[in-house]
């Protein structure tokens, strides 16, 4: 019988839930592993899970500096979508979407992936053309997308200002019905439990302080809990990539760490059913199952590791909220927080072997990392197990920047704060 099910829940309810096992063990590190994954966030844990589940590599340790899932997987706006423009992105995020659709079953853990759709509001004819171009690219790439008229939008999302008198009138919207939201923490916990049950050691409060070398090959790590050797060392530390890679002597990368704020309102009865984005600025919002409106906007726009933003962005985001939903002015902001984003130079990630022998690198997620978690872990695991990328992550090399083979969804060039 599955460890988690309605039946097991009932059974445990009868004895006060005394028999549940920990979701993951708290093992001490072994002296060596086949694979060490640095970073106990969504991507690291997913990588460990797929290494064990898909490639039979279970002698794996995930090393987490703090508490599991303490990075962006635990502080994002939970949006899952694959509404991209460029073929490389569509292929990768569509793969991710397919993994999402069965994730709760695969993990025997309800990650609450809810395909409530994402609606991008367009506010000018030229923006409409851009969105339609993107929607058509999605459809031709095998994804789903629909174009909605202002009338359809008004019916689907009550409260949106579709009046012509709006400062930025809504001329239409791009809907991806299969997109939606998931319970972000549950994704980390589900992957952690899945990996743990397959023999992976998840080691929290274990900070990597250096790399072990065997000639020019990376052969393990020094940590606050001692030396750990490994045949392969994979790095998936998002905003901390710069810090960790410096320990390996990689001083410069095509990445800047920026702070992104996220916001949640007080809990309300159902107000909005889909994820909605405001095209006249930069705003994305949805409503959680608990009832809070979860939303965010632009990054603050300067290098930061502080997990803490500033007031101008708060004001910008709120003004866009009430511009899109004039009724929300009376609703109250409950909490805000900040995450550190590894902003790459073309806005697309890096999932690759190297840059040093024995090392594997996964980074550059900007603020699209959450929805990518399954495909990122899946393809990174493939890359680690086979020492070569899968088709879906083959384009996401580290040398593409120097070679000019860029994947620039926003067309902003080498300006991370604009991606």
């Amino acid at each position: 019988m599955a460890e988690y099910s309605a039946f097991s829940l009932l059974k445990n309810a009868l004895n006060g839930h005394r028999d549940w096992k920990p979701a993951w063990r708290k093992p001490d590190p072994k002296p060596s592993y086949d694979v060490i994954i640095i970073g106990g966030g969504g991507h690291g844990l997913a990588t460990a899970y797929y290494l064990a589940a898909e490639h039979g590599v279970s002698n794996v340790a995930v090393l987490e500096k703090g508490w599991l899932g303490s990075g962006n997987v635990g502080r994002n706006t939970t949006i899952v979508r694959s509404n991209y423009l460029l073929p490389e992105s569509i292929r990768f995020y569509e793969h991710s979407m397919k993994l999402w659709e069965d994730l709760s079953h695969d993990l025997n853990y309800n990650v609450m992936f809810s395909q409530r759709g994402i609606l991008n509001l367009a506010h000018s004819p030229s923006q409409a053309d851009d969105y339609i171009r993107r929607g058509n690219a999605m459809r031709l790439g095998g994804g789903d997308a629909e174009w909605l008229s202002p009338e359809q939008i008004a019916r689907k999302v009550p409260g949106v200002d579709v009046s012509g008198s709006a400062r930025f009138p809504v001329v239409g919207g791009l809907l991806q019905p299969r997109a939606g939201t998931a319970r972000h923490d549950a994704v980390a916990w589900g992957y952690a439990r899945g990996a743990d049950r397959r023999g992976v050691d998840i080691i929290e409060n274990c900070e990597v302080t250096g790399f072990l070398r065997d000639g020019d090959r990376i052969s393990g790590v020094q940590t606050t809990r001692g030396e750990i050797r490994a045949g392969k060392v994979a790095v998936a530390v998002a905003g901390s990539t710069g810090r960790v890679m410096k320990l390996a002597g990689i001083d410069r990368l095509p990445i800047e760490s920026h702070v992104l704020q996220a916001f949640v309102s007080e809990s309300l009865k159902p107000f909005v059913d889909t994820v909605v984005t405001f095209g006249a600025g930069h705003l994305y919002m949805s409503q959680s199952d608990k009832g809070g409106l979860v939303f965010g906007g632009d990054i603050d726009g300067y290098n930061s590791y502080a997990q803490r933003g500033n007031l101008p962005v708060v004001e910008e985001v709120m003004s866009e909220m009430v511009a899109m939903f004039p009724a929300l002015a009376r609703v109250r902001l409950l909490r805000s927080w900040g995450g550190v984003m590894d902003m790459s130079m073309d806005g697309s990630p890096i999932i690759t072997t190297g840059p040093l022998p024995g090392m594997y690198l996964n980074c550059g997620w900007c603020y699209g990392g959450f929805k990518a978690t399954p495909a990122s872990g899946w393809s990174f695991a493939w890359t680690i197990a086979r020492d070569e990328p899968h088709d879906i992550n083959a384009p996401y090399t580290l040398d593409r920047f120097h070679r000019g083979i860029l994947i620039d969804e926003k067309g902003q060039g080498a300006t991370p704060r604009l991606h």
Partner: protein
Amino acid sequence: MSGRRIADSGRIDRDRPVDFTFDGRNYSGFAGDTLASALLANGVSLFGRSFKYHRPRGVLTAGIDEPNALVTVLRGAKREPNIPATQLEIYNGLVTESQNRFPSLGFDIGAVNQLGAPLFSAGFYYKTFMGPVIGPLKGTRFWMLCEWFIRRAAGLGRADYEPDTSPYGRMNAFCDVLIVGSGPSGLTAARAAADAGKRVILSELDPVTGGSANWSGETIGGKPSADWAAEETAALAAMPNVRLLTRTHVWGYYDGNTLAALERVGDHLSAPQPGAPRHRHWVIRAGTVVLTTGAFERPIVFPGNDRPGVMLAAAAQRYAAEFGVLPGRRIAIFTNNDSAYHAAAHLSAAGAEIAAIIDTRLTISNGARELAQKAGGELMLGHAVGGTSGSRAISGISVRQVDARGTVSGEATSISADCLAVSGGWSPAIHLASQAGHAPKWDEDLQAFLPPNATQNWIGAGAFVGAATTAEALRGGRNAGLKAAGAMASRAQQAKVDAPELDPHPAPIFEIRATDGKSGKAFVDHQLDVTAEDVRLAHREGFMSVEHLKRYTTLGMATDQGKTSNVPGLAIMAAARGIAIPDAGTTRFRPPFAPVSLGALAAERFGEVKPDRLTPMHDWHVEHGAIMMPAGLWHRPQIYGLSGETLEQAYVREAKAVRQSVGMVDVSTLGKIAVQGPDAAEFLDRVYTNKFSTLPVNKARYGLMLREDGLLLDDGTTWRLGETEFLMTTTTAAAGKVMQHLECLLDVRWPDLNVALTSVSDEWAGTAISGPNARKVLETAVKGTAVDNESLPFMGIVRGEIGGAPVMICRLSFSGELAYEVYCGAGHGTHVWEALLAAGEPFNTLPYGMEALGTLRIEKGHVTGAEIDGRVTARDLYLDWMLSKKKPFVGSAMMDREGLAAEDRIRLVGIVSLDGQPLGGGAHIVESSGREEPRKSIGHITAVCYSPALSKYIGLALVNGGKARHGQRAFTADPLRKRYGPVEIVSHHFFDPDGSRMHG
């Protein structure tokens, strides 16, 4: 009204009765009442239903930390959900509703959830609802089905969809010293800083200043503390360098000592004052901040601790002292520290019967004993409340002996009471300090987290730093005020405080448990129904880190942000792990300290977000029937439609007029940058791909700019007005970007170049006049210069006058016709525009809009932002002829990288619709016919129009292979709009490829 009112005490005004409604019933209270105090006075005990189990809930606190008594305020149709009754000041006509219950607060169907309570353990939803692996409910469908019901059961208040029309305000304030909190320490700090002549802002979240002085019952300086506070406040209010902000909570502590506060200006009024905002968003930049935010009392976790009538001890005291309301007639006290004895004595003096004082400790201070004697009622030391009874309100408690770890045993004594006042010790309100700093420090004696070391410029005082007595608070406040002011001494003398000697140290007891454990639910987070058992379950399942605890159980995630639940929850987890409380860690507090209306934060940009940009001729366009369209921040004429005309008919008519005779279009939105200085030409040679140093004076040249990475940035014409003076034009969309790009290069990379850049986009009005008769129109309109082919050749520049206004004319063409751009001072824009139209009358000169402009440029194959989308190179657009081989320029070193020179890139072509159907912007191009999806896209359409010149639907596209495909047949694929059709790929130079017309 019930007999809960006390004859004469507190801040309420008994001469001003106030009528209001709660759940449709009329009640009356007094001015100064909160909804909570007024309802308590009316004998109401049931205020709301809890989040998960829909259990009946009353009032737990008297302030901003209230987790239970949340209501929805209605103003006409407008709903404002989740307002704590303890914060809501009543006014005549106030209409309120309880929340999260159906059909009524008294009878709530949702209460059946309590039957399922054993199932609804922490995180139960992660373990189920996965649904079947196959069948119609596979994938996410089953979960989404369950979720539909869960979402409707969850949530608190209901927000409506009616636009909020209330005004919101914003204020930027600067001060030397900001004092947050106006209790005894805050008042003395403010006084000390103000006496030193500093600019002081004192903020208080309550309507009245004074904090604990308003209810402590102590005497300060020989006066009742409330009177002392009132006098201190009056003195401060009289000082010109002091600003008092009441009903204001400082909620965010940001970098650079920038603090954000919300002032509730109108919420307490029946009708808002004219001109006054509902809320005001304060951004306060303070030299030094003095944090005197006080402390929150903690409840003790015990079975049945959520029954209406269970209340914090200080809250009960506040209701009596501040609002003249007895929360019960027969009140039991349950505490682990001395402070509750204050409450006991006060409530007793106010007329309540003290049923008993139950203290977990075996010994207490003499001060406490004296207070206990004053209070009366049995003093039960070494005892604890093990349970409560009553249905919708508490009617009694059962008391048992308790050990030092909080385990009760032995015979239970039942005591009848209609109110239980509880104190579990005090937690300093360190939220703002924590936002701006490191992790807080645990104090073993006070059993509380004290503020962390400051990373920003603040000083703390009073209960906020753990001060145990009012005397200590006064001292600390005074010193903090002086330090903040950089002053030595204050004129104000330290007032003497008369208060009983009490022991400030609580017993380290946070939860009361029966050994058997089967004694009913004990709530830690009241609002979200997180029980002590949930915390222990989280521990069993390995969610031990405090962050995991919070996320797994939702402890502390409610609207009160865990003000009453964080520390008890942490203590229970620490006990389960067998470690000390500080080792279990704390979560970092995040802004806001308490909820803030979105409208206030959006104040001033409400519904606007961004400014409007209007050209000098804007009004003329509108008056003459132009349909305006947004272009970035600009508003531009799309068409000047005639009645009954379709969009297409209108722009075709306008474009035809240009090709046949002459038309005019407003091009004032083009970016214009004055490039001046000895090195101006050298600078342009560096930033443009082609040479400008060779450009003769009074000539213009088309230029191309790349980004540093070698991709296209922008194009435009630049005019040489003098040896060292150029006027650069950019596309409308890229104006700002180009200016910043150039300034950065000049300021950061080439400071040795002596060049000045000035944005003059708004200084010049621009009119493009084009068509075979354009020159004839100018000949009539322009004075002071000839405009014939010799005087004004292609790309030539002349200066003259139109209608008496000085103008600068450049002969250049975007439309492919004989065309000129006429620039004049923005102030003359409309005048010159009208003068040109008048001169053009004989030739039926028509104004034309964006659609016609686009049509003309598409026919010519000119590129704009639609093609230059940040991903294309000059080669992609067949503009490589513009890339100078003779000189380096920005991007020249990067533009030849393999990815940018690759053969399979998408490149510019023209397309012609073969089935006579319109083409769709945003459609893709595919090779295979038919409509089945998906198929490989070989490119996409960037611009479309009906071409009057060709009498066909045409477009520009970026297609892989580019030129190589000329003459090929392909198909458009537009699945979104279900449009598919055959096209021929052709050269993008549709019309007059050799340019004879514009050179004519």
